């Protein structure tokens, strides 16, 4: 099993973790504020499509990335209108939203790019070794020879922790998710905070989709590219007990479980059915969930629309 300490394995794990972590950070804030975004799958997919579409129009992947974040923000806001302002049931809206986005991105892809998408070179977002840090043995290869988006996550994750636990904004977000009525009675504009959180969540999910298509898939958009990662994000968020730090760790573990499939299949393939490897990450997650057990406590108004 010497493969498990290989730097490339962990570098892969981190690369696979990036889009999941990006979306899960947004989802952490959303869930902390009480919004359970089943539609994160759709938000990510719209980001992926937006990134590919804008990048092929503008000929610039950075613009594409920004476009995806913007698309995510707009859809996050629309999603917010439904679940926050209209008090629609969050699970139902999420299920419907995912269907709509799946259909709409496919229709748009064919309507707007009948001859296929011409995504320009994604080299700007590809791996860039950091000077000095990148030269560190092992660590450098794992952590500092990555996409700039991964570097952004090194900053974003601690910032998320700071924001959530050390600022008034974070306090508001936590309060709104843990006692929406009480917060409202304390004069907090619960809908406004939840709307903002949904915009942030949409932006990050859009960026996650963009990362997936521009970095991980090298600019190739295919319908349903996200392929269930949104649900993984939901699981991860809850699993990590709504703490950005744990979310990051969990994302890397999921990434590692994914990356492990290559090693495992290459090692044991033929003796063990593939389906076993494919379900392994979920089995691991389930096992971890069972071991963690009662320690997790969800925000008490998670998924509950504010009726006031």
């Amino acid at each position, binding site marked *: 099993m010497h493969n498990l300490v290989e730097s490339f394995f962990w570098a892969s794990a981190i690369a696979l973790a990036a889009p999941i972590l990006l979306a899960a950070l947004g989802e952490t804030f959303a869930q902390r504020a009480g919004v359970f975004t089943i539609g994160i799958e759709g938000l990510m997919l719209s980001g992926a499509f937006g990134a590919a579409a804008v990048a092929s129009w503008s000929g610039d992947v950075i613009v594409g990335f920004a476009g995806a974040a913007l698309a995510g923000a707009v859809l996050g806001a629309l999603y917010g209108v*439904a*679940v926050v*302002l*209209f*008090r*629609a*049931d969050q*699970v*139902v*809206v999420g*299920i*419907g*939203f*995912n*269907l*709509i*986005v*799946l*259909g*709409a991105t*496919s*229709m748009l892809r*064919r309507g707007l790019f009948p001859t296929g998408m011409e995504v320009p070179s994604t080299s700007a977002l590809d791996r860039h070794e950091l000077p000095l840090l990148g030269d560190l043995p092992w660590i450098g290869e794992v952590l500092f020879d990555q996409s700039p988006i991964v570097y952004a996550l090194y900053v974003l994750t601690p910032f998320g922790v700071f924001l959530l636990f050390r600022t008034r904004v974070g306090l508001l977000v936590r309060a709104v998710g843990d006692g929406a009525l009480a917060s409202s009675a304390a004069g907090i*504009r619960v*809908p*406004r905070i939840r709307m903002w959180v949904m915009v942030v969540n949409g932006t990050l999910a859009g960026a996650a989709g963009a990362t997936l298509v521009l970095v991980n898939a090298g600019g190739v958009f295919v*319908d349903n590219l996200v392929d*269930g990662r949104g*649900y993984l994000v*939901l*699981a991860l968020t*809850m*699993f990590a007990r709504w703490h950005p730090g744990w979310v990051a760790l969990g994302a890397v573990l999921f990434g590692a479980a994914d990356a492990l499939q290559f090693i495992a299949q290459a090692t044991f393939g033929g003796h063990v*059915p*593939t*389906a*076993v490897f*494919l*379900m392994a990450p*979920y*089995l691991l*997650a*389930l096992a971890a*969930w*069972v071991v*963690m*057990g*009662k320690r*997790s406590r*969800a925000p008490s108004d998670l998924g509950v*629309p504010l*009726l*006031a």
Partner: protein
Amino acid sequence: MTQRETDTRSGTEVEPSRAPDPVRGGDRARSVERLARLFDRPWPSIIAAFVVSLGIGLLLVVLAGGTAAEAVDVAYRSTVGSQQGMIDSLVYTTPRLLVAVGVIVALRSGQFNLGAEGQLQVGAIGAALGGAFLAPSIPGPLALPVSLLLAMVFGALWAGLAAVLKVWRGCDELITTLLLNFIAIYLVQLMVQGAMKDPSSTFNQSKRVIAVAELPRFGFTRLHYGIVIAVACVVLVWFLLDRTALGLRLRSVGYNPVASRYQQLRVGRLTVAAMLISGAVCALAGAGETLGVQFRLIQGFSSGFGFEGLAIAFLASLRPGRALVIALIFGGIFSTATRLQQELGVTASLAYVVEGLPIVLLACAAGAQALRAQRKGIA
């Protein structure tokens, strides 16, 4: 404008010329409430949501090159307008309705069963195990009941696992059931690639279910008795929740586990019971597809009924009777979308949009209604 109106309504004497009330800013929610008045009655709002989504659907059809008249004609013929349309709609309704009714049991008992998809997948495994492997060696009349029973047992155990983990370890069933969905899908794959694979087949599928284990069909149509089972489940679940002591216990635990414990209800056991029943009913959806449509376990036989059924359950306010109506409508939409594609060459993607829209719009209508009711104190 709107502000003036409200002002007069609430009788506050505010000068018309006065600068905008600084306090007004944040309270956009009030305008939602005003909108919500459109949805004062549930049935009109349900109809309105469907009409709006179908309107958008029509628009998309026209954009995609069809004409509205054609589309309406297709919609008519693929639902109530032709025998085949009705049959297709009912066939598509069946699994969705079963899932909806199944999750209603869990949701009303306070268990957030997000795992209907997984439960129907393992249900399909059970049904195929019974219908294709066990049935040849048991007396004919038992083949179908045994297959259905096996499916229910599998589904119940799958859901029960989540419940047991909740009671034993306090694991939130939401996550557990979500993860079990993925595992179940790969479990089906494992089965059709390995233990249950039909060696003569060139695809990942099990042996064919033997004839006596098939769900009987109406005449020579493809409509199988799954719809009868589904409707029976609607009645049974209503009866269970509303008319039995167990149902009352389940609902009590669902609303308030703490108070239920003070009344000596066995919260742990009831939690497990709710999930067992829920899983068993959801599993019937998988059994119906296996024994009535595909006649074998086949990889990818479900196109996400699990989540659609969940949406139907919520849209029906967790009432089995309403779920029947809404599931029928969704069956019709699915049938229409399929035919639109066949006849007008409209892309399959449109179907997703036309299905998703009413789900979202109905949820908005229901939410706005609940908000208004709460504000006005009408329970």
